[in-house]
């Protein structure tokens, strides 16, 4: 029961921080507390949210993925290339985007498992490779002229932005997967103690490959959603997206050493970063100061959390 309570406390603590920030913003601005703004926040966090859910899998295995931002750009470019009006059905560019991301993830996973190269190095390499490929395929220019069917993905369905629905669906599926699938349990085991997991008969390589593959797939999805929203495939899109995503996951209580963490925690981390970004915008804080404030809050939140965990 001890651990359950601590988890609750952790989530509760983070939730309190979010509510506190929300309360402060409601008092400081007259625009924060509105349905329109909340919808806006939800829309803004959905891409980071999808990426954070994906990278949660990788961080749980004690790995890391630094290539998220570049792979978002590459998937977006790949998607846009197949999305010119009248060329293909709308499913083709979507599939191309998803598969591009998944392929990058599987390459990362293969090099980590079979190649035995450290995840930091592998994904650092993928970060520049994917960026380079995005620039090569696009000729360095945004891939424009996308069909309305695809850009409609940035629109609403029943009054809810489709990116938000994607994020919600992805988060629910990931939560279900980690909780109920044998492979989900194996992810925790591999991250907790890889050698012990192997000795207990867990297919360690398969599990890691899956984690990187899923992360890649979701990165591809984020790329498609972003391309739809900005109506182009931008080879320079997604700069430093991986940092926001990893920050959200870590704020949510996932250990960089692996084996510990939840999707609920990740959701709260994404929400906190989203609310802070939104609030600073609303208060008209210059983006230079925003960067500093955000960094302080990220480190502060994790510091508070770890201090709490130690006591």
């Amino acid at each position, binding site marked *: *029961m*001890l*651990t*359950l309570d601590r988890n609750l406390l952790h989530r509760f603590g983070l939730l309190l921080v979010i509510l506190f920030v929300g309360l402060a913003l409601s008092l400081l601005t007259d625009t924060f507390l509105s349905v329109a703004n909340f919808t806006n926040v939800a829309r803004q966090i959905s891409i980071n949210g999808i990426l954070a859910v994906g990278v949660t899998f990788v961080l749980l295995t004690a790995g890391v993925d630094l290539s998220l931002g570049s792979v978002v750009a590459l998937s977006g470019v790949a998607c846009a290339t197949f999305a010119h009006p009248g060329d293909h059905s709308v499913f083709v560019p979507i599939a191309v985007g998803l598969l591009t991301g998944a392929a990058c993830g599987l390459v990362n996973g293969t090099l980590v498992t079979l190649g035995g190269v450290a995840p930091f190095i592998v994904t650092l390499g993928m970060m520049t490779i994917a960026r380079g490929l995005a620039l090569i395929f696009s000729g360095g220019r945004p891939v424009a002229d996308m069909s309305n069917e695809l850009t409609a993905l940035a629109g609403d369905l029943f009054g809810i932005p489709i990116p938000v629905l994607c994020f919600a669906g992805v988060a629910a599926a990931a939560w279900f997967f980690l909780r*109920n*699938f*044998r*492979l989900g*349990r194996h992810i*925790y*085991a591999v991250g*907790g*103690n890889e*050698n*012990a*997991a*192997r*000795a*207990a*008969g*867990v*297919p360690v390589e398969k599990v890691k490959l899956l984690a990187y593959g899923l992360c890649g797939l979701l990165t591809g999805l984020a790329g498609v959603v972003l391309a739809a929203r900005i109506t182009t495939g931008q080879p320079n899109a997604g700069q430093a997206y991986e940092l926001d995503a990893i920050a959200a996951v870590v704020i949510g209580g996932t*250990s960089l050493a692996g*084996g*510990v963490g939840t999707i609920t925690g990740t959701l709260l981390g994404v929400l906190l970063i989203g609310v802070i970004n939104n609030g600073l915008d609303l208060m008209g804080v210059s983006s230079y100061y925003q960067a500093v404030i955000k960094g302080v809050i990220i480190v502060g939140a994790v510091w508070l959390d770890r201090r709490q965990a130690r006591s």
Partner: protein
Amino acid sequence: MLRALELSKDFGGLTVLHPTSIDFHLGEVHALMGENGAGKSTLMKILAGLYRPNGGQVEWRERQAEFTSPHDALVAGIAMIHQELMPIPDLTVAENITLGSEPCSAFGLIDRPAQLARAKELLSELESDIGPTRLMHTLTVAQTQVVEIAKALGRQADVILMDEPTAALSDHEIAALFRAIARLKARGVAIVYTTHKMDEVFRLADRISVLRDGRLVGTAPASELNPAKLITMMVGRELADVFPVRLPSSNEVLLEVTGLTREPAYRDISFHVCRGEVVALAGLMGAGRTEVVSAIYGLQPASEGRIIFNGTPLAIGSPQDALAAGIGMVTEDRKGLGLIPAIGVGQNITLSALRDFSRGPLIDHTAEAAASHTQMTEFSVKANSPSQPIAQLSGGNQQKALLARCLLGGPELIILDEPTRGIDIGAKAEIYALIQKLARAGKGILLVSSELPEVLSLAHRIVVLRRGSVSATLDAATTDQETVLRHAMPL
């Protein structure tokens, strides 16, 4: 004199040490005895500055001592050798031994020759020939233990706390350690010592304190106690005989190993295990016992040789293959190859056999919870709940949980590598009874153990390894410790 005055400690509302007062005298070996979870390690860690007590105080040299870190205690002259080894794997032996007290030349640079000389001197005090320039991670568990002891010796401490220092050592290394302890004692150093080995206590200790369930049962001079009395104090009841009666085995061969080789660890290893039979692999540290059983379980496959299981030749490339064939193993290295520390006891237990509690790829949580509950009851694993992280349990309970994991999948052959290492006598008795029960149920047991009384009482046959080769196969009923040792010692 080092005094514990009414020291107590809680962890998350659970009292692991009730107010306890013990005096430790300089120039004496003081043994702390008790089952796992009795509070010995906790008490030692408070004395060493690793834990802050919730109540009471430490008095050192007539003054109240406030140790807020192990460093404070070290400066005051109190060093500790931990049960869980804490080496830095990528540094050399010499760098590990002098860690935190590196000999320095002018400008604060490390004086390498002095560092090497110091390490060599301390190792020779333990009569060890480990090269000081070797990297820590190339050492065996036993050698690592020797280095940790050398490190504590090097602190010039007045009190050395030793938490099961001999758990991984061979008889030869233990003898060397005992001689070093005698020299320290003569120098006026106080030694606080925990062990689960009865013979050690009476060879070493001047005074014995017994803890049970976090309370001090009593302190007495060793001369006033005997093993039977001590066990009664530790477990609170008489333990007539910890070894159950051995039953005859069948003649039906379950496992046959022929010509197993992986140079330079072992070569041409052949033996068999029948259903209902306990076969022990005996030998000194480094004789290749763990390596041979690791090959059978697929942790480190052999380069040559055949494994025939249940009449079928097997190619075992990984533990997954072994488990699928019906071979289970509880490894020697509980922390490195056993526990998934952060997840619950229940999930640790079901990890290997999770497929049996699944529908397709999905876990059946109800079936899983029932299975872990049954296993925890059957193996008397003591935990607050199945979701308590296994890292928080005592060594004996962790070991029982790992046995429960291994047996949950219903293996035909069970490999047990040092199953009773570092666990208390109560848990040992439970494991002995379990081994007999499994043998009676027609399973084959392959046992690796460094404790000869255990090997002689439990096994039907003993395969003795010497430097990676089989030197003898003995019938346990007609052999004795001397014979086994004679075959185990290098010629």
